[in-house]
């Protein structure tokens, strides 16, 4: 983690500001490789408000992590480039800011939690030192004060015997405890928004539940926005308020969490939900989405999902479906819902 001496002020939350905390508008990200241009993100729009959890769901190559990296400004450019789009944090476009301004936001106002906690922590420094560094550098606290703050923070993320373990090194902690330390580091400067990229994927089921609970609890306490990036439909169901489903660099469906599981409005979402076995009943043969995720060098024309879609028609092969609002059969609006399918009506109502 890079830590920069802070003196300049950061954009402070404005009084009575009830717009979204973060808004991504028509974001495109490409990677220039030897084989050609990999179109990783192709026009993503989403927003998250304070106290809200947005889950971004997708398989590998869907562009969910690249979007997050673009928000954080941690993409390697080149090979990556952002030809188009806006990332508004409290209304200010971060893509137009100077590197210095962005650095002030990163870490302080927006923090990130990664999947692999072990490689995100420096193995030769004690966790107490690494946590304390945040306070020493950003807030100018003394060594002793920083240490006290570190212990407080470790208590906050429920690490048992924090005072005794503050001088331990990362490898002395279990996977779940390390992920708690990562959460503590993200929380240290009380950011407005946390981006968690597959935070529990590397953990065991029983530990996963502990960590997700902790994250949700802290989010409520600090009234933070949370973007949860995952491939796991189960994890999402537990904590998210709203979901954006990504496929081949686009959002194909968005919905409040309960609605999505009850009535998916995109054949891909429906296929995903049907293809996972149930814990509470023994099913028959699983539904399997045929084919493979697309090669991002050659995304199919029209709807990227059309070669795998059971409902595909000619129009799906020629026209890219826009993310349109989804309504009830009688035309009543379904708040917060959208689908990028030419046949969303048939999918949700049919």
């Amino acid at each position, binding site marked *: 983690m890079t830590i920069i001496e802070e003196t300049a002020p950061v954009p402070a939350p404005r009084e009575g500001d009830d717009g979204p905390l973060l808004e991504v508008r028509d974001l495109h990200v490409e990677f220039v490789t030897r084989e050609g241009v990999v179109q990783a993100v192709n026009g993503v729009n989403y927003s998250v408000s304070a106290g809200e959890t947005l889950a971004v769901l997708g*398989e*590998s190559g869907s562009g969910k992590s690249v979007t997050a990296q673009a928000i954080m400004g941690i993409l390697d450019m080149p090979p990556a480039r952002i030809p188009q789009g806006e990332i508004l944090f409290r209304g200010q476009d971060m893509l137009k800011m100077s590197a210095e301004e962005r650095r002030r936001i990163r870490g302080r106002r927006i923090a990130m939690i990664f999947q692999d906690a072990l490689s995100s922590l420096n193995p030769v420094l004690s966790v107490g030192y690494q946590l304390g560094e945040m306070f020493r550098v950003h807030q100018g606290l003394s060594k002793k004060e920083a240490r006290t703050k570190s212990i407080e923070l470790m208590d906050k993320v429920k690490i*048992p015997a924090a005072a005794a373990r503050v001088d331990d090194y990362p490898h002395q902690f*279990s996977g*779940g*405890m390390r992920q708690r330390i990562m959460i503590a580091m993200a929380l240290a400067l009380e950011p407005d928004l946390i981006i968690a990229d597959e935070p529990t994927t590397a953990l*065991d*089921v*029983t*530990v*996963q*539940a*502990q960590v*997700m*609970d902790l994250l949700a609890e802290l989010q409520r306490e600090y009234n933070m926005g949370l973007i949860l990036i995952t*491939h*796991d*439909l*189960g*994890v*999402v*169901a*537990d904590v998210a308020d709203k979901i954006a489903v990504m496929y081949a660099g686009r959002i194909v469906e968005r919905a409040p*969490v*309960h609605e999505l*599981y*009850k009535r998916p409005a995109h054949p891909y979402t429906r*296929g*995903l*939900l049907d*293809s*996972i*076995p*149930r*814990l*509470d009943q*023994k*099913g028959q*043969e*699983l*539904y*399997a*989405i*045929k084919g*493979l*995720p697309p090669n991002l060098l050659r995304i199919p024309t029209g709807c990227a999902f059309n070669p*795998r879609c059971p409902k595909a028609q000619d129009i799906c092969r020629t026209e890219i479906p826009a993310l349109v609002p989804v309504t009830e059969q009688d035309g009543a609006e379904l708040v917060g819902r959208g689908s990028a399918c030419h046949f969303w009506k048939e999918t949700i109502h049919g």
Partner: protein
Amino acid sequence: MAELSKNDEQEATPNVSEVETADVHSESEAVAAIEAPVDRGEPILQVRNLVKHFPLTQGILFKKQIGAVKAVDGVSFDLYQGETLGIVGESGCGKSTVAKLLMNLERATAGEIFYKGQDITKLSGRALKAVRRNIQMVFQDPYTSLNPRMTVGDIIGEPFDIHPEVAPKGDRRRKVQELLDVVGLNPEYINRYPHQFSGGQRQRIGIARGLALNPEIIICDEPVSALDVSVQAQVINLMERLQDEFNLSYIFIAHDLSIVRHISDRVGVMYLGRIAEIGSDEQIYDHPTHPYTQALLSAVPVPDPEAREGRERIILTGDVPSPANPPSGCRFRTRCWKAQDKCSTEVPLLAVPERFRGEDTPAAHESACHFAEEKDVVHAA
């Protein structure tokens, strides 16, 4: 001999049946015993008190043992012909070591593995080769389980090079193409290299290699955990189809409890090198009696927010203890909310709990807990 009564789930299938050791005096008799077919529903693999300790050593040239990681510490179960036995547990519970022991990739510290009455831990030479032909494995990571320097044809054909009696030389290319077709890959891909395929396709190649020798048992170690959700279902369905087509018995090792329920006839739950509970899928998932199973099941995130809200959740405190220094008595007691003094002094045996013994209830299955009681954590209240 215990009967596996698939139709009558209520009647608990004993986890461990009596081993009928084959009476053999020579290698060829052993090979003959291994080649003999087993009826559907009869035990084909019987594991007894299997132990694997990895020594912890110190010193450079002269190593001194300072302890042992008790990866597997007294595991017994049966695999019946034609069934799928699921083994679930968290990382470090020893489930992958069990797979390696069954494949003879690791030497057991103690215990026996009877395959058709022959203890395979003591076999060598032709008899061991015959066993190897009949027990195959599908690996977790499709990116590392295929040699990147070999073509698909060479990878799937390698079993025939090692066991030339299975397919005559001129026949091999055709056989490899048949196998590609069976697992749903284009037979023309025979000259391609593994990196030209996606994860799901690679796992199909791994499965084709496992099928090449026409085995009776396939041990699957987390075969779909590295795959995307939409591809997992394809591979699971393929494995189920192949089981019917080739009359295979599976040992399916995984940490994903939903997938294990889907594919398994019986399920064993492992914790720190021991089996905590074993029974039919209905017994384990709908009527678990061991607190660890209950906690594990209740922690599984379910992709259905409404079903979730009605369920009881047990959130365990702390982490799994180190297998180098497991707790005395019951290994789960350090995280168990029911633990009492008895749990630290007496090792609970894996048996039908006394209170359910002789009763006609799905709770009457083997569970290694002093205070076993039924609790449904999977269904909404």
